[in-house]
């Protein structure tokens, strides 16, 4: 099976500052990796995904993530955050042979302060 660890439960940051949300995964098989955002009382919105190819993945709203196979990490970054980025972010992994079954991390709450 696969598992995901999100190392920070909460990340406070000031507006226009850079941010990194950390994600490490565990798997014995090849995986796909994802970052989702969840705004209060809403479902999950896909930010970006890594399937193959370039290890630097760009997503929506200026977010990007880098896949590091040797460190089994998939950290999410944004060079300059906005108040509107305040939300909860989830890292997820799925096995390539069973990509409809996601394993999610416990989430990181990003709190952007003015």
């Amino acid at each position, binding site marked *: 099976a696969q598992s*995901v660890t*999100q190392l920070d439960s909460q990340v406070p940051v000031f507006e226009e500052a850079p941010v990194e949300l950390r994600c490490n995964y565990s798997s014995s098989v090849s995986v*796909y990796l994802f970052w*989702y955002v969840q705004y209060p*009382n*809403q*479902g*999950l*919105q*896909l930010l970006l*995904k890594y*399937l193959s190819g370039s290890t630097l993945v760009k997503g929506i709203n200026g977010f990007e993530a880098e896949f590091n196979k040797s460190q089994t990490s998939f950290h999410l970054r944004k060079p300059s955050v906005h108040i509107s980025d305040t939300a909860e972010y*989830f890292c*997820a992994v799925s096995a*390539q042979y*069973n*990509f*409809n*079954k*996601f*394993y*999610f*991390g*416990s*989430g990181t709450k990003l709190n952007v302060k003015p």
Partner: protein
Amino acid sequence: DAGVTQSPTHLIKTRGQHVTLRCSPISGHKSVSWYQQVLGQGPQFIFQYYEKEERGRGNFPDRFSARQFPNYSSELNVNALLLGDSALYLCASSWGGTSGSRAGFNEQFFGPGTRLTVL
């Protein structure tokens, strides 16, 4: 195009009761997966259905069951509700095929969820 829809939006039940949650996938999608998201945690996989057959089951008790209909919509049923079943239940749909011209990864799209409160 309409996204994944779920009903009802909110639901309040008491312990011991039964609940049915419904999900309509995106048109053309044949796979539906169900997730439970307890407050403060990430979603946990419950079931996946593809072409009306169960293709995966998470670590949930037999009180949880699901089915998929010929139109690919799905129901999640939970019997003998416990306080711990209070959660946001998310449905996700995808084309779901693993062979043919569309073999390989196809993206899952999540619905807005049903908030279940058990008192």
